């Protein structure tokens, strides 16, 4: 299982803060495409991704048990 977290407008669009999916062997980039297609999210391409609370590259492989968070451009401070 992979845990996926949504924040800010992505949370509004997805209608949920978190979900679990049973996919494995995907790269970050592939997971993004899958989520876009299956959960009605647009434009994840401009969104950064964190795997287990660290920023990840599009080519990083996601393992079973990982937590993947989509990080839209931040606006703290």
């Amino acid at each position, binding site marked *: 299982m992979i845990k996926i*977290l949504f*924040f*800010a*407008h*992505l*949370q*509004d*669009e997805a209608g949920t803060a978190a979900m679990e999916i049973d996919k494995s062997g995907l790269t970050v980039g592939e997971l993004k495409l899958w989520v876009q297609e299956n959960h009605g999210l*647009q*434009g994840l*391409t*401009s*969104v950064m991704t*964190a795997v287990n*609370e*660290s*920023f990840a590259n599009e080519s990083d492989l996601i393992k079973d048990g990982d937590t993947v*968070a989509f*990080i*839209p*451009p*931040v*606006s*703290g*401070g």
Partner: protein
Amino acid sequence: MSQEYFEMTKNPISADEVTDKVARREAGAITAFIGTVREFTKGKRTLHLEYQAYEPMAVKMLEQIGTEIKERWPDAITAITHRIGKLEISDIAVVIAVSSPHRKTAYEANEYAIERIKQIVPIWKKEHWEDGTMWIGDQLEQTPYPEGNRRKRAE
């Protein structure tokens, strides 16, 4: 009293409490940056704000900023507290405190910290106006979303 140097909190922030963390006998200068909720941005009136964060990662990223500062300015000690939840006008959203034996370092490292917060710390601001709400999305606030809840499109 907690002595965490990098914190996220749902409660009001006291600037003195954050600066007290970095005060020490070796310090001749402490700088504090206090980010507050501004009523008007480009003529548009904010009623209140809402901050959301990916909390555990946000704390890690604040700690990373502290590490980056330590590498660039070994004399500096940094503490940062960021608030989340609903904030009213004039409420404090963030306090950054840096102490150093000399003042130049304290100013430079402090400004570095706020710039980095706006780049890498997973915190998001939702503006509440009289005519709607919007998640603000650009890291440097130079290209805010034009309308509603739409996010920036990539191309």
